[in-house]
């Protein structure tokens, strides 16, 4: 069954104050994933 975006979720998604903190959180989280690096896959324990 399709999940729906609830009223409270929508408020959370579009509230600028909450979303400001989300913006900071997401920027850091994405930066960490990007900075987490990359490498090969062909050596054991890559």
């Amino acid at each position, binding site marked *: 069954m399709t999940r729906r*975006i609830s009223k409270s979720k929508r408020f959370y998604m579009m509230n600028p104050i909450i*979303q400001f903190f989300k913006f900071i959180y997401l920027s850091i989280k994405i930066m960490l994933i*990007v900075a*987490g690096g*990359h490498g*090969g896959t062909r050596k054991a324990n890559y």
Partner: protein
Amino acid sequence: MSKIVILGAGISGHVAAAHLRRKLSKQHEVLVVSPNSNYQWIPSNIWVGIGRMKSEEILFPLQPLYKKKGIGYKQAKVSTFHPEGDSETEKPFVRVEYVAGEKKGQTEKVTYDYLINATGPKLAFDMTEGLNPGTNKAYSVCTYTHAEHAWDALNDLIQQMKQGKKAKILIGTGHAKSTCQGAAFEYILNVEQELRRHNVRDKAEIVWIANEPQLGDFGMDGMLLSYGNNIMKSSEMVEMVFEDRGIKWIIGAGVNKIEDGVAHYETLDGEYNSETYDFAMLIPAFSGHGFKAFDKNNQDITEKLFKGFMIVDADYTPKSYEEWSVQDWPETYQNPSYKNIFAPGIAFAPPHAISKPRVSKNGTSISPSPPRTGMPSGITAKLVADNIIDAINGKNNLQHKGSMGNMGAACIASAGYGMTKGSGISITTFPIVPDYNKYPDTQGRKLSKTFGEIGLAGHWLKLALHYAFIYKAKMRPFWWLIPE
């Protein structure tokens, strides 16, 4: 002294040129050959296609920047590759043809010590009968000129809807093997929001059509995401968003013919259907450019360099889906026959798809080709540049590696423009190519690094990235601190 020639000035070509120039002393020559005189930040074409940004905001001319930074530039396109030189020229070279200026139409041999092929994809509209941006009411947002035309047509339709016209809008993939579903996904959500902003949403039926077997496949076999405290499939997330926006969908559809306002397609069930529309934006198939290569004696050696796209250090042995592994994916993007040639970004030939291949009941292959988004394009270009720098400095060990099976990607899908009304779906995936051995219980991905978030913050993030990446591309002070 070494000469490094870079073909293409898109995300990967430009990243490679910028890093090479910054890290190599001026005694080494860095030369870019690209037919488009402008750099464009392609992801923001979505906003050009809804009239919320002008092309000028997403592009800048390359020549003045390259001149200032000491990067050579030829506004030309490569036509043939000669990795062993020929009877007259000892050094390897590419033959290029000027596309503008006094030399327009003239060809020239451009010799090199190292060659980076960053020519991306050919937008293969010709692979779908009748699909040609701007004709048959079907458009594209793959370049800024395409996006401008798309907005002109959409705006026209919006004005008609304001007069009471009911309209149908079809957005998705225009070929059974298209990739880049993410861009079409962004565009459909942005169009939907713009229709609301213009108070004509009730006049429009909006339909998603794609070659994906499931919503949210994105050519990456879908993904399991953490979403708040929940774990959700990408298909469920996209379905939730489409339901919320009143968007209908047709999936498993290989569009094969476009007529004026009609898209014909075949489904995985083997049915032949058609869908009418008043405005469509359909992503074409991406193909290689059809380049030819020749050896010293002018014998055709194209198969040593190209398999559609350029051959690199991938494992191209044909295998079934069950046998695919992350180890098949390239790590250094070096051509195995000519070690001074590299192909980062979209220019390299992938070993196979990422999504499970699917064939219709009639035997037509209908499934997404593997995407290579901006982030991996930039990362692979930088590591190629770093390996070339090492080689120039006498270290030929290719120590910089970056397989898409051991690399994350952040994709911020715009879901609507506006500082207070905008929205974005922020998705990160690690790794891009699922590693089913390493992460067997979570569909090949590390859940802590694979998440989705929907909301206004996503729009701000996408906008911040737009400005950050244009700053970086303009090589403004400390540009290199901004990651790829």
